[in-house]
Structures are given as structure tokens and as C-alpha cells.
């Protein structure tokens, strides 16, 4: 009786997973006249290749530092090193990711795929902000909704409402709210500040786009985790709270010594689930920004889809998938280790 379900999971979950690992070592494309070839680790090298290079300023014949038009020390051209320079084969095809001044010159961190590096960093920022913030806000809401008040179920129903709305619909709605000229957010901000706050193009500005998407994502999903916290709160025995009240515990002490220990397992679950969901960030990006402006909202999954589906480069998409899987697995193992039961 378990046969059909097992067969389906084998074909549609487990097989693709191993195919992803397999494809990541080839140059497989979605449609191609040539059979795929084994290419070893070249996909991984292409995506993850990094190099560090220090450049000293150019010196003239007398040994003095050459200055450029702005009076800054002039550096050798980076391009001459990363484009088919036989002296630096390891940097061939790389581009500057970021750099800082050191000594007289600059130190450059080069990446073979700067966009993918940006995508990894953005995804981690998203996870690191969303996981604690969404988990914490959800707990706050759960505590608020756990009070004995008339009509509390109505509020619970409203807070949970965005969870049943598709993230695609939510993204489109919020792209209107964030709009520079017509958006509700700018209208509200300029109304309460009497025009003092300038109108911001929330999704079109590289410094606000990711933050805007983070806020919206939390708005949509926080109700889900509120309900999970709530079910955890309700497993805590009321006698513990009665005992606390008799001892004269303050509100904070009650939370610290009764509620929080009782929520341990729930906390681990919420953290792990939010983290896994956050690493999959895709729909919001696809609807709202397509990774822009200037790659400020690129994410790992958006890159996987853009290459694997958009450019039909299955091997690159699969490699990104495997990298994502390794990241998610490592992060959840670390989380489990850090939150393990200490005996």
C-alpha cells in the first residue's frame, strides 16, 4: 500500500536530487544537439572561484608614485591581469567583487562570478534578518493573542490572513504600495511628516529594495509562525503559571522561567522552518525586482532559475541547487548542534 507513494517520491524527489548532483559535474543543457560531457568540478570553479590580489601603485622611472587625474595613486589596470595574462592564469576571467586600500595600493577580492557571489550574500542577509525578526515578532503576536479577551479569535484570524494569500499576489500588491509616485507607503509617510520625508522609490533603489522585500515577506509569513508558537504556548501546563503567581513572579520572570523553557522545542522548530523557507527566496524577487536594481536583490534560487530555465543551462542551475542544498543542510546541522539538549 505504500508502493505508489514511495514510487512517486523516488521518481520526483529523490531522482531529481541525485540528477542535480550528477548534472553539476557535466555541461548538460535543456535542449542540445550534443550529448552532455563530464566536466569535473568546472561548474563549481566557475561559480565559486575566488582570488585575492594586491596591487601596488605604478611608479615612474625615478621611483615616485604616479598619480592619476584626481591626484590618487595610479594602480595598474586590473583588466590586464584578469584577461588572458599568462603570468596570472589563476585570475583569468575574474572580476573585481570588492576591494579596500591597504598600504600604498589596494587589495582586491576577485570572483569568477560576481553576480552569484552577490546572490549568496543577499540570501544570507535575508536569512539572518528574517529568521530572528520573523520568529521574534511571531512570538510577540502569539503572546498577545494568547490573552483571555473577548473577541480575541477575530484578531487571531486577521493576523493569520496573509498566510493564505499567495506570495505572488502579495508581491504585486506591495509593489503598488512601495511605488514611488502613487504608492501608499510614500503617501502615508509624506502625510504624517507634512511632506518632510522625501518620496522614495523603495524597490528601485539598491539600498532599500532588499529591506522592502524583507519587510513584506515577514508581513506575509509571520502569522504562520505565530500559530506554531501559539500551539506551543498551549502545551504549557497552567499549574506552572499558578505556581509562579503564588511565588509572586513578575511578568518578565514568568516569561523567562516558565514560558520560554516550555517553548524550547517550538523555538527550534520555528527557527529551522523559517531558515529553510528563507533560503528559498524566489517569487518575491521574480515578481518585484527580477534581481535588480544593480543586483541588489539577486538570490541563490533566482540565479538557479535564471540560468537553469532562462538560459536553459541545466548544469549551472543544478550546480547552484547543489550549493544551496549544501548550505541549507550545513546551516540546519549547525542550528541543531547549537540548540541541542544540553545534558
Amino acid at each position: 500500500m505504500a508502493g505508489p507513494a514511495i514510487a512517486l517520491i523516488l521518481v520526483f524527489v529523490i531522482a531529481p536530487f541525485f540528477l542535480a548532483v550528477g548534472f553539476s559535474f557535466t555541461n548538460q543543457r535543456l535542449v542540445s544537439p550534443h550529448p552532455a560531457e563530464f566536466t569535473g568540478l568546472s561548474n563549481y570553479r566557475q561559480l565559486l572561484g575566488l582570488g585575492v590580489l594586491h596591487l601596488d601603485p605604478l611608479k615612474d622611472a625615478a621611483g615616485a608614485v604616479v598619480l592619476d587625474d584626481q591626484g590618487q595613486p595610479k594602480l595598474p589596470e586590473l583588466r590586464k591581469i584578469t584577461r588572458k595574462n599568462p603570468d596570472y592564469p589563476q585570475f583569468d576571467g575574474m572580476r573585481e567583487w570588492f576591494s579596500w586600500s591597504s598600504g600604498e595600493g589596494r587589495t582586491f577580492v576577485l570572483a569568477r562570478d560576481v553576480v552569484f557571489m552577490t546572490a549568496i550574500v543577499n540570501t544570507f542577509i535575508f536569512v539572518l534578518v528574517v529568521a530572528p525578526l520573523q520568529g521574534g515578532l511571531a512570538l510577540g503576536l502569539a503572546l498577545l493573542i494568547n490573552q483571555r479577551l473577548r473577541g480575541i479569535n477575530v484578531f487571531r484570524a486577521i493576523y493569520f490572513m496573509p498566510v493564505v494569500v499567495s506570495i505572488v499576489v502579495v508581491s504585486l500588491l506591495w509593489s503598488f504600495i512601495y511605488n514611488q509616485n502613487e504608492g501608499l507607503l510614500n503617501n502615508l509617510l509624506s502625510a504624517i511628516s507634512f511632506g518632510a520625508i522625501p518620496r522614495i522609490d523603495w524597490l528601485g533603489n539598491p539600498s532599500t529594495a532588499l529591506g522592502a522585500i524583507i519587510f513584506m515577506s515577514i508581513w506575509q509569513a509571520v502569522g504562520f509562525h505565530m500559530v506554531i508558537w501559539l500551539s506551543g504556548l498551549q502545551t504549557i501546563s497552567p499549574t506552572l503559571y499558578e505556581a509562579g503567581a503564588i511565588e509572586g513572579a513578575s511578568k518578565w520572570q514568568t516569561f523567562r522561567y516558565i514560558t520560554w523553557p516550555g517553548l524550547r522545542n517550538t523555538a527550534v522548530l520555528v527557527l529551522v522552518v523559517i531558515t529553510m523557507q528563507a533560503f528559498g527566496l524566489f517569487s518575491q524577487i521574480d515578481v518585484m525586482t527580477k534581481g535588480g536594481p544593480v543586483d541588489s536583490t539577486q538570490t541563490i534560487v533566482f540565479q538557479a532559475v535564471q540560468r537553469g530555465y532562462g538560459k536553459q543551462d541545466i548544469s549551472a542551475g543544478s550546480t547552484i541547487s547543489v550549493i544551496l542544498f549544501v548550505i541549507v543542510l550545513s546551516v540546519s546541522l549547525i542550528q541543531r548542534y547549537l540548540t541541542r539538549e544540553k545534558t
Partner: protein
Amino acid sequence: MAQISQDNRGLRLVVRYAVLCLIAAIFSFPLIFMIVSSLKPSSQLLADAHSFRALLPVGDISLQNYFDAFKRAPVALFIFNSVLVTGVTVVASLALCSAAAFAFTFVMWKGRDLALTVILATLIVPFETIAIPLLLEASKLPWIGAGGITWGWLNSYRVQIVPFIADGLTIYLFVQYFKDLPGELIEAARVEGASWFAIYRRVVMPLSGPVLATAAILKFLVMYNQYLWPIMVTQEEQYRPVMVGLQYFFQLNRAWGEIMAYLSLITVPVLAFYLYLQKAFIASIASTGVKG
């Protein structure tokens, strides 16, 4: 003294409700805005966005945007596709996953524990990480139809349904529920000579109302809101679901009135369904967390 503390309590209550209402406003205003705006001409919608009128159904109210949305895109087809794909997947998923969970819980067979472990391990594989190879796999799978064997599943209903019928979470939910059923019932039926299938049909399923509701709601939300997979596998309009249909409204000059009408059309039925079965929805999410 008593008077003061009475007032204090009243004040506190007011503050509590004020906080609750403020948060409720944050969670509901985008949805109210969507529904209200769907009834306004685009020009008025943009003008109203500058004041509280954005959240009120005032001015030139009509269903014109809905008619226009139907003209712009085959909306009825998209809704039909979504309902078909979601409905078939939910029903098939409940049948196969509950049967599998039954076999995992009550029947002893070789390799049972290993198989269950592997299935639960798939829970840590996010769908996004298998979507790309699954796309290639689906483009090459065979299908036996009226015209003999055909190759490739892209642009079809089956490619949106079959891969999502069996999943680790649904099986897990059923296993957790079945473990708490009284084992004596099943033993008694076995002693009377009932077959496993008869026990599943006549004894276990009739007791499984709550878990069926939970699994159905979770599957429904996932399937109806699918986006990444259908944009990859439905290049042809004929098989597109509602979320992919949204792309018809991404024009250079976005007709916001029509967009809001389309968004309302695909969202309000789900919201109504949720508000009607609110307790079951919330209980189903909660039950994914209780045992962790």
C-alpha cells in the same frame, strides 16, 4: 482605592484593544485596498491612493475592471486550470499518502523503517533545489495516451499534478495521527479476518477526519499558490494556472484597476474559504508544530 484600580483596569483594556486593532490594520490594509481598488477606475484608484479614500469603496464604483480583466486574458481558463490541478492533486495526495502512512504504521514489512526514514529525510530538501533537474526529467518522461507512447511532459496537466501527489510532509502528518489511534481496533479487525485494505477503508479512514482536513488544507495552499514550477513547465497558455496568468497584466503601463480585479478574483474565494473554516486552517498549521 478600589475606584482607581478599576479605572486602571479599564484603561489597560482600552490600550490592549488599541494595540490589537493597530496590528490588525497593518495585516489587513493591503487586502482591503486590493478589494476596494478593484471596484474603481484606474484614474480614480491612483487619485484615491493619496488619502483614506484608498480603503473606502467610494466614488465611481463598478465591476468594469472585472469585465476588462476577462477581456485581457483567458481568466476563466486559468481559474479552471488551477481548480483542476489543485483538486486532483489534493484528492490523489490524500489517498496515496494516507495509504502509505497506514502501511508504515500498522503493517510489518521488510525495509519499512528504512523507507520511512528516507521519506522523512526528503523534508530537508527544499523544492527549489530540485526544480531545475526535475524540469529536465519532466521534459523526457514517457506517457501512455490515446495516441500511444509520447515523450515529454511539458505543457500538460500531469506535469503540474503527478510530481506533487506524494510528499514527505503529508505522509508524516498521517503517520503521526495513525500512531495515536487505538491499536486494539486494528488487531480486533485482523482477528476477524479483515484484509489490510478493508481495515484501511472501514476502520482507519472513518476515524481520520481531522488529519484529512489538515492535510487537505496544507496541500491546497501549496498547490493553489504554486508559481515557480508552473512558469517553467507551461509555455502554452492552455495549461497555465492563475498565478502564472498574472503575467498578462504586467504591461509597461500597468492597468492597476484590472490588476486589482484579477488579484481579488483569485484571492477572495480563498480568503472567504479561510474565514469560513478559520478554526480548521489554524489547527492544521498548528498540528505541523506540536510534535516537532
